[in-house]
């Protein structure tokens, strides 16, 4: 069967479904629409993740006075697809004493739990999977599954380095959940909603990054810890723990971890954009030409997301790794108080209704 005939079959099926749509019962149409939407979302998130890796490699290259990937595709754009194919072809090896369920289930669950979040995050007006009233909470809850799966796969791979990495990972992620959630509370107080779409639309006059700058800092630091990136990448500190909790993983299982890590990095950047940087909107006083072209929402959303991720890359290129005890001390003794202060600031802003320079938010009942 040639590629052309594959395309033909796909077009036939799609055309058939499209032709049949008016005659199908509504519940079936909903299911088909959801499946198609999910497939598009899956493809978009995976491609974005891979492009994100390319983006990081190129940016890191520039920070380090080199050029990054250059050879496969234009400016190395296809390098990561090639790497992915290589990992796909490799044999996955399981240590004899490793526990099968945990060893294979851990990375799979980690990957799936990261992918699920993309179904919740709105991307632009009309590009959300239904407006869930508690979508922010749901996203954060699924986001915090990760330590469990990491610890599971670390423990079951029966390696001392993996176990230590898993312990560190669990300790770190759980410790930084707390300031992240408190910082999110500040956003919720200001916007009055747990719905991400509402939170974005509440930022039409000013971005929450301005009044809640402290919360933004706490959230970014917390996200760095959740993503396990430098300076908080100690669970996989390669200098002492070889590769930490994924020491024993190779081939596609390693690719799962790698992809899920970058998925989580992408989700973290998206959450920062949604909560603090106005999502797909620009403030209402910018010229309308900037926001009126087709797909402007998605365009600005992507630009912001990649810029935020660029900051993470910048941090990675310039900071050393901290130690576990230092990390936990900073988490509990600096981040939590800062987050609490930012909640107070949010409450003060809500009480004052209007900010001196930035004006009022209509939703606050001014």
């Amino acid at each position, binding site marked *: 069967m040639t590629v052309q005939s594959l395309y033909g079959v796909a077009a036939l099926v799609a055309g058939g479904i499209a032709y049949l749509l008016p005659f199908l019962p509504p519940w079936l149409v909903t299911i088909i629409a959801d499946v198609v939407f999910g497939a598009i979302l899956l493809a978009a998130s995976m491609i974005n993740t891979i492009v994100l890796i390319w983006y990081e490699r190129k940016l890191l290259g520039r920070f380090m006075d080199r050029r990054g990937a250059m050879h496969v595709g234009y400016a190395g754009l296809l390098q990561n697809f090639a790497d992915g194919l290589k990992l796909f072809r490799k044999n996955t090896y399981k240590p004899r004493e490793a526990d099968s369920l945990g060893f294979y289930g851990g990375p799979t669950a980690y990957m799936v739990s990261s992918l699920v979040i993309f179904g919740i995050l709105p991307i632009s007006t009309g590009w959300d999977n239904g407006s869930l009233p508690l979508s922010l909470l749901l996203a954060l809850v699924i986001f915090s599954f990760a330590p469990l799966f990491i610890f599971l796969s670390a423990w079951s791979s029966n390696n001392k380095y993996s176990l230590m990495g898993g312990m560190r990972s669990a300790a770190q992620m759980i410790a930084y959940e707390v300031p992240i959630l408190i910082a999110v509370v500040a956003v919720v107080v200001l916007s009055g909603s747990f719905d991400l779409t509402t939170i974005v639309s509440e930022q039409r006059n000013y971005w929450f990054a301005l009044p809640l700058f402290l919360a933004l800092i706490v959230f970014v630091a917390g996200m760095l810890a959740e993503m396990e990136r430098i300076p908080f990448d100690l669970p996989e*500190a390669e*200098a*002492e723990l070889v590769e930490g909790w994924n020491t024993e993983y190779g081939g596609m299982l390693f690719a799962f971890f790698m992809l899920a890590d970058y998925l989580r990095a992408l989700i973290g950047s998206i959450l920062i954009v949604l909560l603090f940087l106005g999502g797909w909107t620009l403030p209402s006083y910018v010229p309308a030409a900037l926001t009126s072209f087709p797909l402007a929402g998605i365009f600005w959303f992507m630009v912001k997301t990649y810029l935020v991720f660029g900051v993470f890359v910048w941090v990675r290129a*310039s*900071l*050393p*790794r901290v*130690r576990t005890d*230092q990390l936990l001390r900073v988490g509990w003794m600096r981040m939590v108080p800062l987050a609490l202060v930012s909640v107070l600031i949010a409450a003060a802003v809500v009480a004052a209704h209007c900010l001196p320079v930035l004006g009022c938010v209509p939703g606050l009942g001014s």
Partner: protein
Amino acid sequence: MWINMGPQHPMTHGLWNLRVKIEGEIVKEIDPEMGFLHRGIEKISEDRHYNEVITLMDRTCYVAGIAWEHLYIQAAEQALHVTPPARALWIRVLCEEMQRIASHVMWYAAFVQDLGLMSPFLYGMRDRDLLLDHFQSFTGGRLTYEYMRVGGVRNDLPPGTTDRMRKTLDWLMDRFVEYDRLCMGSEIFRKRCDDLGVLKANDCIAYGVTGPMLRSAGVRRDLRKDRPYAIYDQVDFDMAIADSADVTGRYLVRMEEMRQSVRILRQVVDWLDKHPGPVMAPNLPRWLGAPYAPVGREGYLLKRNYPKGVGLSAIEEPHGEANAYVVNEGGEHPYRVKFRSPVYVNLSAAHKYLVGYHVADIPPIMGSVDVCVGEVDR
């Protein structure tokens, strides 16, 4: 729980095994195992011509090859009663100081990589390449040079080397400022390195620890100052000293040493410009097998007539004090060659500066020791 850090582990920077007993994240006991890279260099040397041993010296320490050549050559010349010309001595010091910077830059790159800083690693490798380019221009090699000979050096510097050298030195001085900003300017770096791996002066002396580790504990001991060899008494430089005895101190000492090396190199380059001359001693015995040595009829000495001798040299190698002992019992080969590796001694005090710290502290501490396994195992 005992864990093996090594023989293949990112921390080791070579081939050795650090067995660590940990409770939680705290190091309770350590047990270094060395010898994975033993090649029997001292024994092989007994079976080689004097000039053939130089090849082995480059392999002894693969980041400071020419310093070890210098060490061996000094001992061999003493044993063979050969006096090299002045220009050769200055070129040797040029080589040694260039190698010191290259070695310290390499150390810097590896050390910050252990701390998770990736960009300075590449900066370090980039800047080291400049020095290696210089080495290549007059020795032909970038890592293993085989440049020094009993009685001098193999060939003179090609024209223009000194001018290119000055440019490189200026550029390097700017880069050192950048290095310092990236490390000492970073609060996380200071938090990771201050009061870490402390080895006090009396412990250093008791264990025979030398080099930057000793000087970081505040002990004024540098063979280039205390027992000047080659032409170190004719150049002007300061000894790099710190008094914190921790990882930061070692970092500061090495950084200062690089600046002092640049200072020495500038003087050496000026001297070399003003004093052309031969780089090999005349009248060398032909059986030394120096391929480029000018051997005259009058300088032809039969080896059975050659006087016996013993050579002992000590130099301040980038890692510490290295000694070489060469015995000439007559004949084409040295009768016995023995080296003292500074890193081996520095490593033997490991339990003093590792126990009690966190597992995460092991890479920076061992990085600050600057382990070169090639010379540890020899």
